[in-house]
Every structure is written in C-alpha cells, then in structure tokens.
C-alpha cells in the first residue's frame, strides 16, 4: 500500500504537466489550441480563460453532493462553469480588449464544457483529498497553458514572422500555420516529439524498448 501511495504521489507531479497532458498526451482539450491559438496574445487570453473557468468550477463542484445522480451532476458542473464564465469574460474583455475576445469566437464559451471539468473530475480529481486535488488541477491547467502558449508562439512566428507582435527574425513565412489543418499537423508533430522524449527518458531508466513502453501505456 505504501508503494502504491508513493507511485500516486510521484505521478501527481508529472501527470498533469507531461505524462497525461490534456493536449499532447490525451487530446482531451484540443479545439482552442488547434483553431484559436494562432498568436501568443490569443493563446494568453485562452490560457487565462481556461485556467480561471476550470479551476474555480472544479473547486466549487467538489461540494456538489455525490447523492445527486450523475446525469444531473454533470449538468450542474456545466451550469457552474457557465456562471463562472461570466466574470471571466468581463475580466478578459478588460485585460485583452473586446476585439481580441471576439477574435477567439466560439472557442472561449466552449471552455465551459471542457473535458477537464466534464470527465477528469469524476475519474480523477474528486477521488483525491482536497489538497492533492488542488495541486493536481493546478498542474493539469499548467500543462494546458504551456502547450497553448507554445503553439501560439510557434504559429505566430511561422505565419507572421512576429512574436507577441514584435518582429522576429525568421527566414520564411508559412501562412498555413495559422489554419485549422496547420494546427492539427503541428499539434501532431509536437505531440510525437514529446512522446519520443518521454519514451527516451523512460527507456533510459527502465531499459525497455519504445514499443514495450507503448504497449504498457
């Protein structure tokens, strides 16, 4: 039991950021990253929106009694997220301006039904004690934010030759990087790269082949 606890504790720190990253590893929240994170500023706005909506919704919904049937509980999660979305929307409008918020289109409001709230809560977060849950939620959100900013930064450099609006010396411009298909392909490539790094690290420590590790996963 002690060993099991130790494994859970170890994974608490790495799961959200890397091992089970909700964008790169499990593809649970991808739409905003693929379609809306086309510049660093847009990515930053998405990160603020996603972080605040997800964190406070998961925190508040923890207090919804488990006696309520799952069918209704899931609706309450979404409704809570939609209520929390209102002040977050005002904050984003104040921080980034109405034009940028509008440019995010449907990808901002759909955050109220993101899989971190609708799926991970029931199978992971609410099975932990309160303190561990908060740490895990924070790390999962941080994992999303890191990937979202990375994608936004890379796509802005590739598509516009700038970073956060400032000129960035890059030999060529690739306008397709900011399209949806560009987002899919880039995300696939980054995900494959991260998996290769992960398998390499694992491989070194356990002396197993990459194919064996994939089968284990």
């Amino acid at each position: 039991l002690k060993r099991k606890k130790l494994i859970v504790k170890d994974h608490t720190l790495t799961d959200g950021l890397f091992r089970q990253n909700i964008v790169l590893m499990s593809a649970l929240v991808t739409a905003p990253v693929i379609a809306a994170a086309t510049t660093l500023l847009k990515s930053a706005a998405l990160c603020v929106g996603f972080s605040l909506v997800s964190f406070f919704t998961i925190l508040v919904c923890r207090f919804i009694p488990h006696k309520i049937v799952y069918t209704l509980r899931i609706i309450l999660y979404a409704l809570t997220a939609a209520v929390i979305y209102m002040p977050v929307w005002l904050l984003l409008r104040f921080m980034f301006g109405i034009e940028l918020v509008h440019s995010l289109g449907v990808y901002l409001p759909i955050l109220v039904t993101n899989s971190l709230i609708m799926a991970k809560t029931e199978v992971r977060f609410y099975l932990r004690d309160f303190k561990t849950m908060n740490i895990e939620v924070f790390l999962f959100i941080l994992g999303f934010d890191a990937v979202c900013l990375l994608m936004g930064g890379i796509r802005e450099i590739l598509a516009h030759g700038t970073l956060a609006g400032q000129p960035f010396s890059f030999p060529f411009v690739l306008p397709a990087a900011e399209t949806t298909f560009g987002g899919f392909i880039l995300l696939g490539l980054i995900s494959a790269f991260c998996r290769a790094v992960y398998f390499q690290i694992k491989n070194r420590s356990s002396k197993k082949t990459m194919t064996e590790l994939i089968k284990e996963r």
Partner: protein
Amino acid sequence: LDILVKMITAALFTIFIQNTVYERALGVNVLLYSARKKTHVLGYSFGICYITTVSSIATFFLDKLFVENEYYEMFMPLLYVAVVGVIYVITLIFFWRFFPRVFYKIKNYVHLSVFNATVLGALFLNPQLGGDLFSYIGYGIGTGLGFMLASALLFSAGKSLSCDSIPPSFRGMPVMMVYIGILSLALSAFIGYSTAA
C-alpha cells in the same frame, strides 16, 4: 419545397464547408473515442445530431430574443447549457420510461455525446451563420452528419494508423492528428484558395 432546400443547403454547408471537426476542430476527443468502434460511430453521431437539431430550435428563439443585448455573449453559455441540459434530461426520462433496455445501455456514456465542444460549438456558430429557423435545423442536422463523416473516415483508417510501420512515438494520437489535419486540408478545398497577388 423552399424549406426543404433551405435545410439541405444549410446541412451540406455544415457537413463540407464548416465541418465541426475538420474546419472548426470541435469535439476531437469525442471523435477519437467514437472512432474506435462501428457502433460508437453511429451512436455518438446520432446523439450529437439529435441534441444539436433539437437544441438549435430552442436556441433560435433565444438568439432572436437577446441578439441585440450587449452582454449576450457573456450569458449565452448559461442559456445554451440550460437548454441542452433540459433536452438531455427529458430524453433520458423518455428512454427510461419507454425503452429501459436502451436507457441502461447508454446511460453511462451518453453524456459524452451531449456535453461536448461539438454540440455547444455548433449552437454558438448558428447565430454567426445566420438564417431562419429552418436553416438552424439544417445546421443542427449537418453538424451530426458532419461528425459522422469525420468519425467514419477516422474509423476506416484505424488499422492503418496503428500498424507497426508507423514510428512508435507517432502511434496513437499524434498520427491521428496529422491524418485529421490532412483530411482537413483536403476539405478546405471546398472553401477555395487563391494565391496572393
């Protein structure tokens, strides 16, 4: 006949030009899950089609009522989630009362086809695409059929995408993303492309 043409045009538009998965990248996680089995492809697509179509009728009237309001964008998600939630509960009660076998079969995963980015995203897109009630219904049907198309294409490529000739780090989600990206590129031809002068 006019109504039928309107609905078919709107549906075709959302299947090929504004496909929720290929053009909007909505509901990719549900797509990856549903493309694992043939029954999932049909089940999830039907669920999404039903919810988006019925919800579109209700949200059409909400949009007409609040479209002028400056803060509609802010409370839009609350109204839409409430609409979807009510339809979801009524549908489940209907199945529980008249088709208990089906209810017990679907009750554990039906929420995945209801509360996801595809459904909510499609409802948010309706006012942007515009049109009357029948166009809204057409968009709803088209969203479901578009998801079915995406799901069927991914399902049919499932074996090829998990074969041993694919590098290990690309297997699973990365290669699927690249595959969806290539299909998205192909479908973007419907929108048209012109080189800069």
